[in-house]
């Protein structure tokens, strides 16, 4: 029953990165604190991303002050759908996706019908800091809704599947895809019961899939074989991750990427402290990968060259 207490040696042998090690040897060393603001503020991130041609959902507008909230309909005029999110939110908190609307009815992606008052309240909550880190006053960001590609339709229960790329010193180090389930309530959050599928960084092919830390082979709701998962525009996904490094200077980051039917892969957010569950999804230790990059990968390459270097290693 307690044999797991003696797992330490084997985990070390398998190059598994622990939380303390991540914080001390990686984040504290390669992620300067002053750079955090670049990724903590989604408005800033978006502007920065657009300046170096990273695809992101187009910004419709921002609401900074309470008196602007009533102008919401004016701001979104001309758009069929839109997304409201807190600029300083994390983990998808406070994100409201409106699929279609008229003056009084707002239809959310999760199937609710909201009144203007409800939406007004939601924006107010964002401004008062309900969803932001440390409860600070926040800004509501309104952007175009992503037209999700159909390719993942069978692999996700509601919700948006996204690709998380861990980028170390600019090199894509590990990738997983997160698929929403009924249990996760349409969210792509692993510890709420979403499925994580580890993808080989060079080939994009599925390696392993887990739900609640346990290996699975088919999606619990759609019954799709997870090993059949294929991600189009693989190279483009990796380039977005790699560019995120150029853009932020964070030595260790997680880029969350979604696939838009028309515009291709788009970066949703960058995380300066990406979690370690990706190791379980991949069935591999991250430390081994980071060491490999430290020791054998060349310096001074551009983002595309770095991605090609990684892709060529798989051949």
């Amino acid at each position, binding site marked *: 029953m307690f044999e797991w207490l003696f797992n330490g040696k084997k985990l070390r042998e398998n190059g598994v990165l622990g939380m*303390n*090690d991540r914080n001390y040897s990686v984040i504290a060393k390669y992620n300067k604190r002053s750079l955090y603001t670049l990724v903590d503020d989604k408005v800033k991130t978006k502007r920065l991303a657009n300046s170096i041609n990273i695809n992101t959902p187009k910004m419709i507008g921002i609401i900074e002050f309470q008196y602007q909230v009533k102008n919401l309909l004016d701001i979104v005029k001309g758009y069929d759908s839109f997304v409201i999110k807190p600029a300083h939110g994390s983990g998808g908190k406070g994100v409201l996706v409106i699929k279609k609307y008229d003056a009084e009815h707002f239809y959310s992606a999760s199937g609710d019908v909201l009144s203007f008052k409800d939406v007004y309240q939601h924006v107010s909550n964002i401004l008062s800091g309900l969803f932001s880190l440390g409860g600070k006053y926040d800004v509501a960001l309104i952007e175009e809704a992503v037209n999700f590609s159909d390719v993942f339709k069978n692999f996700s229960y509601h919700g948006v599947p996204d690709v998380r790329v861990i980028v170390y010193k600019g090199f894509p180090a590990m990738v997983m895809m997160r698929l929403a389930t009924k249990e996760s309530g349409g969210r792509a959050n692993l*510890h709420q019961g979403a499925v994580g599928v580890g993808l080989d960084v060079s080939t994009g092919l599925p390696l392993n899939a887990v739900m609640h*830390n346990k290996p699975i082979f088919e999606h619990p709701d759609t019954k799709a074989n997870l090993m059949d998962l294929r991600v189009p525009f693989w190279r483009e996904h990796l380039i977005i991750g790699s560019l995120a490094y150029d853009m932020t200077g964070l030595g260790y980051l997680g880029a969350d990427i979604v696939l838009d039917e028309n515009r291709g892969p788009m970066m949703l957010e960058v995380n300066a402290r990406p979690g370690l569950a990706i190791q379980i999804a991949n069935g591999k230790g991250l430390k081994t990968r980071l060491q490999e990059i430290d020791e054998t990968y060349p310096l001074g390459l551009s983002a595309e060259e770095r991605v090609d270097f990684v892709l060529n290693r798989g051949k």
Partner: protein
Amino acid sequence: MKLNVTNFFTIRKVLSLLLFCAIAYSAYSIYYKVKYWGFSLSPKAVTDVWTVDAKISFMAIDDKVKVSLAVPNDRDGFKILSEEVVAKGYKITQDKINSRVILEGNGKKGRQNLYYRLSIYDDAQNVALNSLLPAKVERPILSEEENVQMRKIWELSELQKGDKVQKAILAINQEVNSPTMSLILPLNHTSKEFAEKVIQILAYKRIPARIARAIKLEEGRKTEKPDIMLEAFYDGHWTLYDLNTAKIGLPKNWVIVQRGGVSLLDVKGGEDSTVVFSVLKSVASPLKMAEHRAKAHDKLWSYNYSMYTLPVFEQNTLKWLMIFPLAILVVVIMRNVIGVSTMGTFTPMLLAMALVRTGFWSGLICFSVMIALGLVMRALVAKLNLLLVPRISFVVIFVILLIQVLTVVGYRLNYTIVSSAIFFPIIITAWIIERASITWEEEGAVNTLKEILFTFITAVVTYFVISNEYVRHVMFAFNELNLVILFVVMLLGTYTGYRVTELMRFAPLIHKEN
């Protein structure tokens, strides 16, 4: 990982070195406090304090009265806590050299009762006795018969064990009832006469000896006369002997009140004088005695700059504070080494502090009820969609009212469990409720209950560490240990090993075939 290896190891090395220094300093400091201030590692340690009362009683007959009483001195290993003379209208002088208290009075009439009171602590065994060199002893001038006796005693003494003096004392004791002995020592002799005879016999061999009077420290003992013992100068130093058993040294819990040929009590201008000694025992905590001990060791300067000289209120506050670093260490270990996630970093510590005041079960039950009620209330309010700050404010005010109601109801119905609500920090309680309800909405009941449970477990572990009487005592009496904790915590800041919970979390990453 080969990340900046040199830098990585230097930090750890420097911290280890500092930790080592802190340990060395603490070890020395503990030794110092135990040795010179008499601190104890156990909170239950007590120091016996003996109060010796000498009641001097006499009839004043002259106009001028002078009383001189032999008193113990602190050269004998006992440490004097306080000395006090109750003698109204008498002039009091202390003669430190001869260890006497002198009282002089004018125009006293009738029975006089004077009191001398001495508080002493710490008996130390076999400390060097008054080391003044004795005068040369002349062989006593004896009759022929007595000379025969002397030789016989010394011959007999050869059969006894021990040093020369011990042999002689044992031989005399054996012979004391024999007819020959009665020639030199009457059968109905007092112990003083006996002692004097021993001194004479020793003088025959030119061994200097003198009488010592000692009192046994015994609870409630009342004795008119101190017991008589013998001091002999043998082998270059004074040694104390028991006149009956010939045992060497002052027995435990005895104190010498007078030595040498001088009398115990001298009364000039009075008659019918008596002195009655009585002994009372009391106990004091070593912390209270520390100042006296520091003084006795001439280490008062260090003591004066310690927190133990502060007023009691400040001391109690510091005693409370001194336990915090340990509680923090527990939290650091629980989070970074064990790897449980808690609501807020130091919330468990503050909870544990509250539990110390409320008592374990009553506090735990009361707090759970508060959290549960708060969560229900918060869930009802959630429908109103209040803004963040007013909503948290609502929870805080609700908790304050809840505490008020629980305390009053608990007091009226005599349920201490309920009234312990008052000791829980309002903001912490409100914050746990707010945080829990948000987690509940966003991550579900299971995750919320898990987080609350971990917070409670951490608080309970912290509680058991800081509520331990020994731990509290040690952390206060030997507060330098906090320096050790400081560096341990810093070193834990460089710990990159797996957390215990990660061993389970990452178990799927162990390939069985390996």
